[in-house]
């Protein structure tokens, strides 16, 4: 009987495919998490760049920012770029991310 029960359990407890909508929702959630991480890193970059002692290493900061801003591969494929007001520090942040993304593409290419 145990074999029969195991066979029935295999028939009853089949894997269930997650709905497509869940994948989208989940990837948005993960994307938000990586954005928070990227923003924190960008803040650090900006404050670091205000200090003249750090001006000699902007490329390193940009590369690190690029990695964080890029976030998860799965998220990046679907994520749309948010359009922000480009004033003051935000413009600087945006340009840093732009350069970082270019560097990242080249590194991967």
């Amino acid at each position, binding site marked *: 009987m145990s074999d029969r029960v195991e066979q029935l359990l295999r028939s009853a407890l089949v894997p269930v495919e997650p709905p497509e909508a869940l994948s989208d929702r*989940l990837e948005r959630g993960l994307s938000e998490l990586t954005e928070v991480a990227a923003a924190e890193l960008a803040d650090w970059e900006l404050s670091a760049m205000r200090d003249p002692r750090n001006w000699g290493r902007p490329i390193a900061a940009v590369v690190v920012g690029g*990695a964080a801003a890029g976030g998860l591969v799965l998220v990046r494929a679907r994520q749309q770029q948010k359009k922000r007001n480009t004033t003051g520090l935000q413009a600087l942040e945006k340009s840093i991310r732009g350069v970082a993304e270019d560097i990242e593409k080249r590194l991967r290419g």
Partner: protein
Amino acid sequence: MEATADKERLDKERLDRDFTELYRAHLRDVYSYSYYRVGNHHDAEDLTEQTFLQAYRHFERAQRESDGRPLRPWLIRIAHNLAANFYRDRSRRPVTQLDDASVLHEPHGTEQLVEEREEVKEVLEGVSKLPEDRREALIMRFALGMDNREIARALGRSEGATKVLIHRAIKQLEGSLEGESDE
């Protein structure tokens, strides 16, 4: 200083790549586990989402401490803990009454369909009446295809205890199915 930044970048990239791999490999496992735990798609989606968000937050540490072992048991353990909180917070009882025909096998004929569905329904009802730890072990074994070692890690038990747990779960289920067929 640049070397440190480079290392951070590489670590972050590797971590994200590994997490993406984990997510792709085990989304169905986490969803299946959640679905059989809570018994409906709506709550299963919430549970799956929370599991992966929590996993992402602690992924670096888990990977460091895993010592190269597979992370599926860790992932399922997160879902297991969240499911326990889910019931505690909402004062709900676990439900495994699955009315979704999509989880039933495709039939070969009408009579076989009816018979199979009846049997599957009885098995699912039987599983839902098992004590929580036995039910969980069966879900992990049959819906997720986990072996004793993985289940043991997910449940925080020894392999020996897990083997006994599964054996007893099957025996109990067998008893309840025999009882029903006698009625």
